[in-house]
């Protein structure tokens, strides 16, 4: 892994000095703010809509802490995961397309080191952004509702984060194989759709990362779900996808 440390430092500096420091954290903070607020306002909104229809009476329960957290993890699984997929699509393809890969890879930097540094830096960005967004969501939820379900909330976010990191590794492989940012993004979104569909099938849900897709909400609601195999296969998948991306990239001609 020649040059790994130097390239990882470069990646960290690139994140902090370009648009990348704003996009994902901003989306996560926005989602963190919107989760509790939309949960709070949803009953009033539905009531006002129902009130405009004569003769319609809808009983809407008061919003709770659970609603706020469910709204947040729902947004994570949809909006934020799609953002992660799109933002990670150019991980390797972007460097190849721009020509910077040619310059750095003719120095003592191994291709494995470049791929692993990319996966690590993107994963850290996703993890820190998630922590920031979750913290904002928790603060607002405590302010607007109460401080219940904190452990469940942390578990639910951790489950989603593992799914997001699985997609970061998958995007590294797609970015290397397809050599196109747009192509990798499209393939990543297709993979997400397939995983979401697979999560509706029992064996896939129980024994593959597909089980993580809807798991966050179920963890929050206290459902007793078996997460061992989805977690194990996701962790193994992250390692395997990263190794595969490095192996394919090492064999590619630039």
């Amino acid at each position, binding site marked *: 892994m020649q*040059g790994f440390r130097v390239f990882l430092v470069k990646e960290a500096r690139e994140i902090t000095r370009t648009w990348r420091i704003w996009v994902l954290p901003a989306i996560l903070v926005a989602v963190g703010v919107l989760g509790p607020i939309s949960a709070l306002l949803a009953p009033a909104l539905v009531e006002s809509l129902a009130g405009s229809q004569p003769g319609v009476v809808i009983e809407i329960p008061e919003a709770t802490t659970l609603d706020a957290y469910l709204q947040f993890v729902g947004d994570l699984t949809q909006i934020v995961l799609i953002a992660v997929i799109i933002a990670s699509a150019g991980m390797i393809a972007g460097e190849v397309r721009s020509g910077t890969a*040619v*310059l*750095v*890879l003719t120095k003592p*930097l191994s291709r494995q080191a470049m791929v692993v540094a990319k996966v690590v830096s993107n994963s850290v960005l996703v993890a820190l952004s998630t922590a920031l967004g979750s913290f904002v969501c928790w603060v607002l939820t405590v302010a607007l509702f109460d401080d219940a379900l904190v452990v469940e909330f942390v578990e639910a976010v951790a489950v989603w984060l593992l799914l997001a990191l699985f997609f970061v590794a998958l995007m590294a492989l797609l970015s290397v194989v397809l050599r196109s940012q747009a192509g990798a993004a499209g393939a990543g979104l297709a993979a997400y759709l397939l995983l979401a569909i697979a999560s509706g099938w029992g064996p896939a849900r129980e024994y593959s990362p597909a089980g993580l897709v809807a798991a966050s909400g179920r963890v929050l609601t206290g459902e007793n779900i078996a997460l061992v195999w989805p977690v194990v296969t996701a962790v193994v998948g992250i390692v395997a996808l990263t190794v595969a991306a490095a192996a394919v990239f090492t064999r590619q*001609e*630039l």
Partner: protein
Amino acid sequence: MTAAVELEGLTKVFGDVRALDGVDLAVETGSVYGFLGPNGAGKTTTLRILTGLARPTTGSARVLGHDVVRAGNDVRAAIGFLPDVPAFYPWMTAPETLRFFGALFGVGGKELDQRVEALLDLAGLAGVDSKVGEYSRGMRQRLGVAQALINAPRLLMLDEPTSALDPIGRRDVLEMIGALKERTTVFFSTHILSDVERVCDTITVLDRGRVVRQGPIGEFKRDRGAARIAIEVDRGGAALAARLASEPWCVGCTREGETLSCAVDDVDAARRALPALVAARELGLVRMVEEETTLEDVFVELVGGAR
């Protein structure tokens, strides 16, 4: 002494296209070696193989004694490389760029500070605070040469370093390359003949993936192409041109007004006969000059003739 670059039967095939077809080449250590050829000749493919960006289909390539396929790390640690269009991280400044590349080579501390400072001076970028993304093409190319020198390489490989530059940018980059003579071996691919004439001492001409000729630049000019002698007379140029065309040493004669340019295959015979022929016709000889064979003449003869 180990050759800086040795290619033996180097072949690269893309589908049905043989980009390189059995290239044999040896670059002497310490030389400024021109790798010359028209666009599509295979120059960039050769450099991509030498730098480990691509693999040969057959044949071998050695850089500073290391096989480029089996000992890629050793090769990359010892060379400096400038691609034809160097791309940098646009958010970095020039000093940051040089420090990053220096760190990849394991250079650090005061040594890195000194190298960065010296290379910024060499590239004319000292005191430039803007980010590389705001640089002109010429500035990026000069930074490209500087980054290729950050590890004090034993071999510097430059791929078309002047092809997209304006005359001032070209002059600056050629001056930088010229300043490297005797400090390192330079392997320099280009299709710009005047650049080769200006900085290289040995050249290889590549065309359609094959070596057409290689050797010292002076040998090329001496061995290839008919010499030309230009004469200017005060009157009667047309009649003189017709007379010269019948001389056995005259290969061809062109005329512009009273100035004649004669291609000759026996320079000594032409030198003796021309003044006498002018005097015999009672013409005034204004000027008689032997025109040097340019690399362009040689190149056209080697490559252009085959098209």
